[in-house]
């Protein structure tokens, strides 16, 4: 049978992992028993009264005993034990239609647990973490390993370690020179060398970019609104805020407060107001026919989902329609949480049906505008002047004005103007009417309109710019006008959070927005997490409550994600769910230790990373042998480091960096790398044409790529970047043929290969292949590898020499210039080899 086969696989895996092994004497409710009860029993015998069967709930000990589920100390007298073991199909638990089945081992655990007294314990994640100050990461890992008869693996090689540090901290590879210097220093004093390299990397501005990547997944940052026409929104300032915050090591608790309620901080800075756009990053819609109330409900629910998952690792989403099936979160908690955000000035539907809850006019100021253009009307927007550009505009305007003054005084120009106007008026009476802007054509067609000085100035200005230049001054004006930055360049905008009149929030029965019969709720945090303490009703109160060290979830959830970034798996590997269905941590003491250490160090993310990477645990080899990997594929035991495929953005960054193409500018509006033609053809309202960036913006890091939610750039998508329609705390990893096709044929990688070849050949032709390998892998090639690549190089050399046109074609991919004084066949052959190396598994893997 299918099911028994599956469960057998699972149990054999668990046995080999030995994570959750429990002998009779050593059963812990939280680790061993609750996961079974939660997964197999709570759906019908848990917190949600609506689906509770027989009035029995097993999640509370007194109720379970009162409901005669078990008799402590006496499995033989316990109904629970009898029902899970019976052959009677009508009575067996869980019932067959649930498709849940207990394994032999699980049955044994329940038996032994009842025999030992059937004690419960509070859920680990809802308790304050505890720390023994003498412990360290290594002591806690080694203690856990010792129980399994294991030890830490040997330290990894210096060059591997440096490459690991680079990818983990800045996301960019080390240069060959950096590898050599580090290797030498490491020989003398390993710890000092690592500490020095770490500090250097942590102070690099690229650190913020690396850290922002995953954070932007969690807060569902994207450049477009996602629903229906998927129009552009304006949010890139938020991305830059996140990068800067990590670079400035803004304490994580402050980072939380600024995002949820930066606008409510007294005398909020511009940066804090930008941060609070977090609240407006969710999807929006302009689809004709949608209803305001429906989308108000969608928006509020999405905010609860994202805020609870991103900051608290809680699946409050489940309580939108009913009380949570597993966790003590009620539907009332869901809507009370949503009510914290009800002050945000916005519409539900961004159509005619949509209404702000208050007149937006009273909130508009020079730097708060309602819309940017006819399609980007997801107001209010915060308008931030681009000082350099504005200065340039001002300078040009001044110059134009002084030229105009000269011209206005000139009788010749006056005559030219009159002739131009007369001619236009004549043409308006003919069949081929000139096409002019509305205000100009109105003036032209109104007789004597130029007698009014204001109107005349408008016409005269238009004349100066549009008529063919007859004087040097007019020519200069036209040149200057062409140089003037566009109004869109003078300001950057961001959809912004403004606190206005609260909307009424009701509990929606079964999540149905058309049902307004539910009770009105007031803002409040989930009762079970707060012990009924009142915390206030503003978003700022909520933000402070989440960011408090008293909140048992916040620090744990974050350090666990950092751990996952540095080891591949979290200590609890359900990064977005610390509830009952989440995974009991593989090393709870370590998770707690990290959380407390983090808070003690004033929530410094840099310090957290420094602490982890300086540990022996982090610096172990990731290649301890196949048997090892097979038995613990996700490295939950931490008896080694993990081999991790680079995330999508870093695969791009790595290729650009190695090849020397990378533009290292930080921040700015999103950019458009090469993309297959026609990829946006299904977009409408308006139709979209993708124009890839030229110049240095073509070569920016992946994090700056224009994030079109409905059609994410195929390279990013193929390597598992989420479309960010919703909060994503994990990326689904896969290994697909589309990835191979991307690395082989995406022009970005072909161009990078040519640029790497160029870079190497510009030095000289010696050891070409060896140097290419060193650039990509931070290690020299072996004899065997050299032989393979040399053979390819020679074959390609012959092929390209025989047909120079083919060589030229291959070299023509991409916009970057390349030197013509290197023979085409040599450059092409070197590029072909470079392309091969850029495709290697090792190139896109951090060891």
């Amino acid at each position, binding site marked *: 049978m299918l099911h028994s086969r599956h469960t057998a696989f699972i149990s054999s895996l668990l046995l080999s992992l030995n994570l959750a092994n429990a002998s009779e004497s050593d059963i812990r409710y939280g680790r061993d028993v609750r996961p079974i009860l939660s997964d197999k029993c709570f759906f019908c015998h848990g917190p949600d009264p609506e689906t509770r069967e027989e009035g029995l709930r097993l999640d509370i000990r007194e109720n379970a005993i009162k409901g005669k589920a078990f008799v402590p100390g006496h499995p033989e007298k316990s109904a629970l034990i009898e029902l899970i073991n019976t052959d009677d199909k009508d009575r067996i638990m869980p019932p067959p239609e649930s498709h849940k089945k207990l394994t032999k081992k699980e049955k044994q655990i329940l038996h032994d647990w009842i025999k030992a007294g059937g004690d419960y314990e509070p859920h680990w994640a809802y308790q304050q973490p505890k720390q023994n100050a003498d412990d360290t990461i290594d002591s806690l890992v080694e203690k856990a390993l010792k129980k399994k008869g294991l030890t830490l693996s040997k330290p990894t090689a210096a060059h591997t370690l440096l490459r690991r540090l680079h990818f983990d901290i800045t996301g960019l590879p080390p240069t060959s020179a950096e590898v050599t210097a580090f290797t030498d220093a490491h020989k003398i004093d390993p710890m000092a060398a690592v500490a020095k390299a770490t500090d250097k990397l942590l102070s690099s501005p690229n650190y913020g970019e690396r850290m922002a990547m995953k954070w932007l997944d969690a807060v569902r940052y994207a450049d477009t609104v996602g629903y229906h026409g998927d129009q552009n929104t304006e949010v890139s300032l938020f991305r830059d805020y996140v990068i800067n915050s990590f670079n400035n090591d803004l304490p994580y608790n402050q980072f939380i407060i600024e995002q949820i309620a930066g606008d409510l901080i007294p005398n909020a800075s511009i940066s804090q107001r930008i941060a609070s756009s977090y609240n407006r990053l969710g999807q929006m819609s302009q689809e004709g026919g949608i209803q305001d109330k429906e989308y108000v409900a969608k928006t509020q629910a999405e905010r609860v989902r994202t805020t609870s998952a991103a900051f608290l690792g809680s699946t409050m989403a489940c309580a939108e329609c009913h009380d949570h099936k597993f966790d003590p979160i009620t539907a009332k908690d869901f809507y009370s949480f949503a009510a914290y955000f009800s002050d945000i000035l916005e519409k539900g539907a961004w159509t005619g049906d949509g209404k702000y809850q208050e007149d937006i006019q009273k909130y508009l100021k020079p730097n708060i505008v309602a819309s940017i253009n006819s399609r980007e009307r997801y107001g209010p927007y915060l308008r931030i002047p681009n000082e350099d550009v504005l200065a340039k505009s001002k300078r040009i305007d001044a110059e134009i004005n002084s030229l105009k003054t000269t011209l206005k005084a000139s009788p010749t120009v006056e005559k030219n103007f009159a002739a131009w106007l007369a001619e236009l008026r004549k043409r308006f009476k003919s069949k081929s009417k000139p096409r002019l802007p509305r205000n100009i054509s109105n003036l032209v067609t109104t007789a004597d309109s130029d007698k009014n000085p204001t109107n005349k100035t408008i016409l005269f200005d238009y004349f100066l710019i549009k008529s063919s230049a007859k004087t040097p001054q007019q020519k200069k004006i036209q040149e200057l006008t062409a140089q003037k930055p566009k109004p869109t360049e003078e300001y950057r905008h961001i959809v912004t959070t403004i606190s206005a009149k609260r909307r009424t929030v009701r509990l929606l029965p079964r999540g149905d927005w058309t049902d307004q019969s539910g009770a009105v709720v007031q803002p409040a945090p989930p009762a079970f997490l707060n012990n009924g303490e009142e915390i206030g009703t503003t978003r700022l109160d909520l933000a402070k409550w989440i960011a408090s060290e008293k909140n048992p979830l916040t620090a744990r959830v974050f350090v666990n994600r950092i751990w996952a970034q540095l080891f591949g798996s979290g200590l609890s590997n359900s990064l977005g769910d610390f509830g009952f269905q989440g995974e009991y941590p593989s090393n709870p003491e370590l998770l707690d230790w990290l959380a407390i250490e983090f808070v003690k160090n004033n929530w410094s993310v840099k310090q957290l990373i420094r602490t982890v990477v300086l540990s022996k645990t982090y610096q172990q080899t990731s290649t301890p042998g196949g048997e090892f990997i097979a038995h613990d594929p996700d490295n939950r035991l931490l008896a080694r480091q993990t081999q991790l495929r680079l995330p999508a953005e870093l695969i791009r960054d790595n290729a650009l960096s190695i090849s020397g193409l990378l533009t290292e500018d930080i921040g700015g509006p999103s950019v458009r790398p090469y993309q297959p033609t026609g990829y946006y053809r299904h977009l409408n309202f308006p139709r979209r044409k993708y124009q890839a960036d030229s110049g240095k913006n073509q070569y920016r890091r992946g994090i700056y790529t224009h994030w079109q939610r409905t059609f994410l750039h195929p390279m990013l998508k193929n390597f598992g970047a989420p479309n960010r329609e919703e909060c994503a705390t994990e990326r689904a990893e*896969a290994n697909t043929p589309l990835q191979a096709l991307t690395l082989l044929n995406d022009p970005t990688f072909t161009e990078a290969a040519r640029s790497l070849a160029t870079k190497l050949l510009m030095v000289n032709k010696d050891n070409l292949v060896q140097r290419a390998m060193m650039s990509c892998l931070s290690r020299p090639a072996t004899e065997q590898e050299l032989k393979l690549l040399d053979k390819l190089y020679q074959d390609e050399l012959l092929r390209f020499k025989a047909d120079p046109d083919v060589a030229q074609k291959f070299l023509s991919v991409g916009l970057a210039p390349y030197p013509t004084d290197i023979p085409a066949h040599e450059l092409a052959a070197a590029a072909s080899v470079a392309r091969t190396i850029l495709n290697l598994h090792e190139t896109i893997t951090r060891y």
Partner: protein
Amino acid sequence: MSPITRRTFLSHGLAGIGSAALSRLVAADSPLAVPHYQPKIKRVIHLCMAGGPSHLECFDYKPELEKLHGKAMPESFTKGQQLAQLQGKALKCMGPQWKFNKHGESQMEISEIFPHIAKHADDIAVIRSMHTEQINHDPAHTFMNTGSIIPGRPSMGSWVLYGLGSESQNLPGYVVLTSSGGGQGQPISSRQWSNGFLPGHLQGVEFQSAGSPVHYVENPPGMTDASQRDVINTINRMNSITSTRTQHPDIATRIEQYELAFRMQTAVPELMDTKGESQKTLDLYGCQPGDGTFASNCLLARRLAERGTRFIQLYHRGWDHHGAVKNGTEKTAKLVDQGTSALITDLKQRGMLDETLVIWGGEFGRTPMAQGSGDRAGRDHHIKAFSVFLAGGGIKGGTTYGETDELGYGVAKDPVSVHELHATMLHLLGLQHDALTYKAQGLDFKLTGVEPCGIIKDILA
């Protein structure tokens, strides 16, 4: 794939212990290896009529509505119900705009705008009692495809692939083709064929009819198939060396993926090249090779089916007839009628219809009330009732299932939810819908949602 990898894969796929380990899968793998019970079909071809075809002009004839044409819609039908663009407007009935004729032994009533489909009256089962939860295109498509309105859930094609794997060694197991015309082209999101939280190799791969059919499937200029082969050979040999050194099973999978990529580079152009099809076949579909029409996509669907693709989805964007529903439905029908019919005929004559399920339908229906007036009168979105039809293996041809009320507004008999449609599709594939689960966010997710849900037995042979 080594036994160890396969074992870890299986346990991870089902227990959801971690997603990282799933990277070790190859595309042809599935978590079940065997279906839950004897399947009736091997594959699904979903002809998605995007925009919401009017059931009242297609498969659900309402003479009573004709009698009330131009009169006020009785309030007993519409009071308190959700409307889209007709909110706050006077609601007037609009009779069916096309004649319906009876076809086949089953005497099935089909609109005259489908002369070709009508020939298959005894092959198809029409469900007139579909209803949905979402009144706007984007969320309604999401609901139809993923069974949920929350973005980020896997599409049905990904679920099917997760359940059964692919049969193709050279082509993706889930392919999407698109065409448009005949009505307003509402945008469509790649979310509709997303793998959601399922592993990435289960996503739908969109083939384009213009340019490169699959992104990055063409060699860079200056690379021939032979030189590309040399490069891939070198990559794979280098990767093997690394594999020996690091013993990581991911590398074996990567090597396989490069082989599969290379095969795709040959197989995709071969698939798309319909020049070898006989004139008779081209005439049957009424298309020219590679013209990007719905009909030529139908032909490609047959070719994909022959090559083992498990789930094939054809979107035709053009059924959103808020205005001129009469002309509009005729125009759009003309673009899809012959292709749909040809696909059924062609599959049948090749003995493949019995192992294929063809689903034809949109994300919702359209109101019995007019939107606008005169020649420009159209119909608004409608979620209370709409029609779809099914054909192929396990389907009782000639069946008309379910009824709407006399005005075609609500379901009067045998309502069918989107989840029930999904459950029935999975059933035909040999999959028990409530046992096909995947653990994410602490829950055992199903395509068919949390409410109990049955299959539509009466349309099954």
